[in-house]
């Protein structure tokens, strides 16, 4: 069964440092997403991406965040200057259709710890 792959599984970084979280979506999917989940809380939408541009973003996704699809297979989330409150699980997801009729497929996540 096709999977969304995320690397690394765990990243520890110093406050103020830049981090890049990487995702390989399912190959025939066209819509890509990042969500995050602070420990013990619900999953929150960050951003959606289609046709090489952001199609929707939440208020969490401020100027410190950016996304990129650099080579047609990877989908990355960059946090420019990490803060302690950025510590969370970050999930990448992809879907074939826009409205998620077939559901999203989520990756297993990257646990980001900012110290």
């Amino acid at each position, binding site marked *: 069964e096709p999977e969304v792959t995320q690397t690394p599984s765990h990243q520890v970084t110093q406050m103020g440092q830049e981090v890049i979280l990487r995702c390989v979506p399912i190959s025939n999917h066209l819509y890509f997403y990042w969500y995050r989940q602070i420990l013990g809380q*619900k*999953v929150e939408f960050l951003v959606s991406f289609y046709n090489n541009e952001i199609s929707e973003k939440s208020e969490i996704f401020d100027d410190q965040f950016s996304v990129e699809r650099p080579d047609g297979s990877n989908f990355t989330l960059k946090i420019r200057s990490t803060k302690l409150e950025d510590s969370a699980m970050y*999930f990448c*997801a992809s879907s074939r259709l826009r*409205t998620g*009729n077939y559901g*999203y497929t989520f990756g297993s*996540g990257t646990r980001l710890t900012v110290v």
Partner: protein
Amino acid sequence: GESVGLHLPTLSVQEGDNSIINCAYSNSASDYFIWYKQESGKGPQFIIDIRSNMDKRQGQRVTVLLNKTVKHLSLQIAATQPGDSAVYFCAELGNFGNEKLTFGTGTRLTIIP
């Protein structure tokens, strides 16, 4: 504003019994709902979905019921197994063209052997 909430944060069920997990939503324009299962250290896993023009949908051992009058949906798991222990989230996809999922807070289901 939009919100999707769950009635109970934890639920313990004897193995073999049926379980029911509930979810309330506030956006009456919501037209698509998904139940996800999240095991420890993993991402949300799709279980079953339902569109707003349906009241009930069945899968393998799972049934989702949607009551639009009171804006409530539930997930029924029949004959629970130890592998059903996880956190269950309902999620809502709003009006057509809205791409983001809004998740509820989750219910932790524990199956007692």
